[in-house]
Structure formats: C-alpha cells, structure tokens
C-alpha cells in the first residue's frame, strides 16, 4: 500500500475518536485560558477589594436587640462559628484602603483595626484593644467570605469583630 494511504488512515483514526483527541489537542489552550482568567481575576481583586467594612457585635443568648436577623448572609456565617442567638451591633466603620496607605478602622474606641495592603490583593490586618496590639493576620479576601475575629467575653456574651470586603472578587 502506498505511503499516502497510510497517512489517510491516521487521519481517519483522528476523526473516529473526536472527544478524547479533542481534549488532548486543546488541553494546553484551555489551561492557558483558565490561567489567564485567574491572573486577571487576581489583578482585579487587588484593585477592587479595597473597600473594607468593620463591625463589632455583642453576641448573647439573652433577649437583646438583634441586628443580624436569622436568614441574613452574615448570620449564616456567625451561627456555625459563634453559636449565640442574638447579635447586637455596637459599632461599625468603613474605609477605602489604597496601596501603600494603611488605614485605621474604628468600629469603636476600644477595639479597632489597622489594615495594610500587601501584594497580590492580600491584606495584613492588625487588631488593637485600646492601645495594645492583639493579633496580626494576613489574608486574601474573597467576596461573601467575612473574616470573623473573636473578642473577649463581655458579661454573659462574647464580643465578635467582623470584617467584610464587599468589592472583593
């Protein structure tokens, strides 16, 4: 059989198994597309996640004012972690954090945050109690994923600090 007939046979083979062959053939292209989308998303996240909202709650089981009703998105995050029935908001604050410009965020004068932007859309968050630094944490925020930080016990309840990035990707 001539050589040309053999190559035609290989071509016929490729056409007879399109699904697996197509995946193998276009895998690098798909990989590049996904990776590119990830890099773009990360870069957008670094720009867009700079609006920060801080809230301070007193969580208790006794019947106090409830500022986070059941069914609210934040309540769905607080309940499995904190586990109290009522969440009274004691204070909140907003800030827009720019690159190379750390911001103070004071939901109250007793507990407050310092937010430092880092590279790749990450932040270093420092929690202060009056004039004393308590913890430093670094995180990359995500949309709809709040950062919950527990505070000290207060009477029968627990102080809870929540940071959210509404513009995060």
């Amino acid at each position, binding site marked *: 059989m001539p050589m040309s007939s053999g190559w035609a*046979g290989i071509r016929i083979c490729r056409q007879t198994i399109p699904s697996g062959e197509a995946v193998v053939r276009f895998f690098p292209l798909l990989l590049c597309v996904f990776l590119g989308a990830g890099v773009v998303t990360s870069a957008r996240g670094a720009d867009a996640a700079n609006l920060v909202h801080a809230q301070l709650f007193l969580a208790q089981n006794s019947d106090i004012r409830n500022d986070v009703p059941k069914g609210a998105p934040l309540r*769905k995050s607080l309940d499995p972690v904190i586990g109290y029935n009522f969440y009274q908001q004691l204070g909140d604050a907003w800030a827009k954090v720019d690159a190379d410009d750390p911001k103070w965020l004071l939901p109250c004068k007793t507990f407050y945050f310092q937010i430092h932007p880092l590279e790749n859309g990450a932040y270093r968050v420092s929690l202060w109690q009056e004039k004393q630094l308590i913890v430093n*944490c670094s*995180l990359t925020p995500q949309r709809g994923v*709040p950062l919950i930080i527990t505070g000290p*016990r207060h*009477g029968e309840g627990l102080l809870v600090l929540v940071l959210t990035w509404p513009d995060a990707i």
Partner: protein
Amino acid sequence: MTNFEDFTRELEGEDEGKTSGSGLAGLRDLLRKGLSPEPSGQEQAWAWTRLQARLATPELIPGSFLWMRLAGWGAMAGLALVVGWATLGHPKDRLTVQVDPFHEEPSLYAVAFHSSEAHADVVWVGGYSDMQANDPIR
C-alpha cells in the same frame, strides 16, 4: 567453471524432464504461488477493515508518537501549575495569624482557619481577660 557446467547440465535435464525432485522444484512452486490469482474484493475489504481497526487503537508504547505527545502535554501542565502557584499563591497561605509577642497577657492565643460550613474565615482568639457586663465599650 565446474559449477557453471553443472548448473547448465541441470537446466538442460530439467527442460527434458529428467530432474523432477531437484531444488528447481521449489523454484517452480514459488513461481506457481506468485502467479496465483489476485485476492477477491471481499478479501481486500477484510484486510482494509483489519488495518483500520489496528490504526484506530493507538498503542502507548514508550517512544511512540502518542506517548511523546502526552508527555509533552504533561510537562506543559506541570509548568503551568508552577507558574500559577507562583502567581496566585498557595491556598493554604491565604489566611495566617500571629499573636503579638509583646502582649502583656501571655495566655493569649490565636488560631486561624476557614470554615466551609460558615463560609467564613475565622480567627479564634482566646485567653483574654474577661470584661464585666458593666465595662463600657465606647
């Protein structure tokens, strides 16, 4: 010269039908096979089907074209993962926490984790001095 004479003699003998059981009989058989009729269309179709079936099942033999191609894609995927890891960061490093070592309460501790149930990042800080209910939070 002797060999040539023997060969000529043998050929002449074959022509006259004297050497029927000699080596030339094998040559005659070969000639007969070569002159046999061509395979039928049905036989050709079977042969073509067998060839197609053989070509349609790629074999993963080390060094074969398909094997080398798969190895190439694997290497590219590995490279892309390394680049992605370096670019986007490792997911485990997304949330870390450290208690201030100069804090006056040595019992203070902090644990950071992601709660998939709560869909939240959590920094659990313990070891605080309790606040009384009448302590003001300004």
